[in-house]
């Protein structure tokens, strides 16, 4: 084998290594959200019960559920599973404190978010449903009268996910009020067709 042949074969194998490495890298990046064992949903799931708004512990050094938390926020989470029906989220906003709501998939992507500014007459009403549930509802809706919707209907990309509610405590003395406010947001699965 001449030097040139050797060099060529080495180059070929090196290219092969790089090709496999690039492929492995891309696949690993793309499947990471599906396979990461300690992602946000897993950490919150160890702590919260599905279909119920749970106040998250206050962010303090050494006692944080997830990194990059804002210590000025009071946060509550509601895990949902739409397999048995839509989820109804309702919030009454008594004062002007900042309240934000984000709707997230099982893997943590945000498919919708809003602040208290998007409220109607001081309340937020959101129903999260699958595309099939929305289609079924719209079919029956057509038969009835055309009343304006009082709530926002959101189609979730997955059946599982979570809602994160934040309220800002502008001063440490406002923390109790902010916590009470996020806790008062209700999040209830709709079992059968109601009203």
């Amino acid at each position, binding site marked *: 084998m001449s030097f040139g042949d050797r060099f060529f074969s080495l180059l070929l194998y090196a290219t092969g*290594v790089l090709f496999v490495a690039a492929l492995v890298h891309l696949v690993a990046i793309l499947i990471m959200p599906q396979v990461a064992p300690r992602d946000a949903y897993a950490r919150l799931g160890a702590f919260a019960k599905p279909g119920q708004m749970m106040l998250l512990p206050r962010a303090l050094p050494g006692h*944080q559920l*997830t990194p*990059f938390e804002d210590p000025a926020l009071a946060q509550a989470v509601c895990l949902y599973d739409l397999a048995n029906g839509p989820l109804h989220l309702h919030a009454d906003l008594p004062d002007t404190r900042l309240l934000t709501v984000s709707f997230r998939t099982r893997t943590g992507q945000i498919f919708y978010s809003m602040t208290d500014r998007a409220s109607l007459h001081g309340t937020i009403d959101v129903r999260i449903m699958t595309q099939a549930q929305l289609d079924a509802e719209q079919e029956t809706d057509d038969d009835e009268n055309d009343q304006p919707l009082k709530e926002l209907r959101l189609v979730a990309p997955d059946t599982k996910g979570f809602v994160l509610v934040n309220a800002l405590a502008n001063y440490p003395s406002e923390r109790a009020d902010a916590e009470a406010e996020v806790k008062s947001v209700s999040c209830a699965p709709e079992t059968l067709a109601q009203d």
Partner: protein
Amino acid sequence: MTLIKFLLTALAGTALGFLVTVRVLDRGIGFDTARAGPWFGQPKSGTMDIDPYANAIIARTAELPLGSAEGLSFIARTDSLGAPLRPECDYTVSGMVPPTRYWTLTLISPEGWLIDNRARRFGFTSAEVVRAPDGSFTITLAHMARPGNWLPVGDTKHYALMLRLYDTLLDFGTTRVGGGALPKITRGRCT
């Protein structure tokens, strides 16, 4: 012999691929980066358009980024001149913040955890900060207490600053954001 060579190639490629993945995710490299002075943000992380790298990173760290309608967050690991933030130096964070309903500034470790300090102060909210008559503010980062808006730096070798703009009009999709849009971080005395 050829088969062994093929297997070795595949094995070496797989190992290299995983190594590169871990390195890239640890260093937080992504395509979606908005920059204003020392502040870095990933505005698409709050949408379904999240960059696949950012998505892999949040899956690993379990962080919960702000939704695009909730606000924008920025992290600074250096001062405005680009030098890393050093715990033995004082820094001032000063200037204005773009039109925003509320904002908070938090001191964290580079991995995103709060750092304990004796004063039990981890950041400022826009309501707490004492301002000059023109609306600008100056926050001093230092080990020892300072007059005015003092943000204590606990016992740490490295830290970063997180600026969150809640309900903001700043939009990286439609406007070019200049380096001066967010507060300046200036190094003061070092011990």
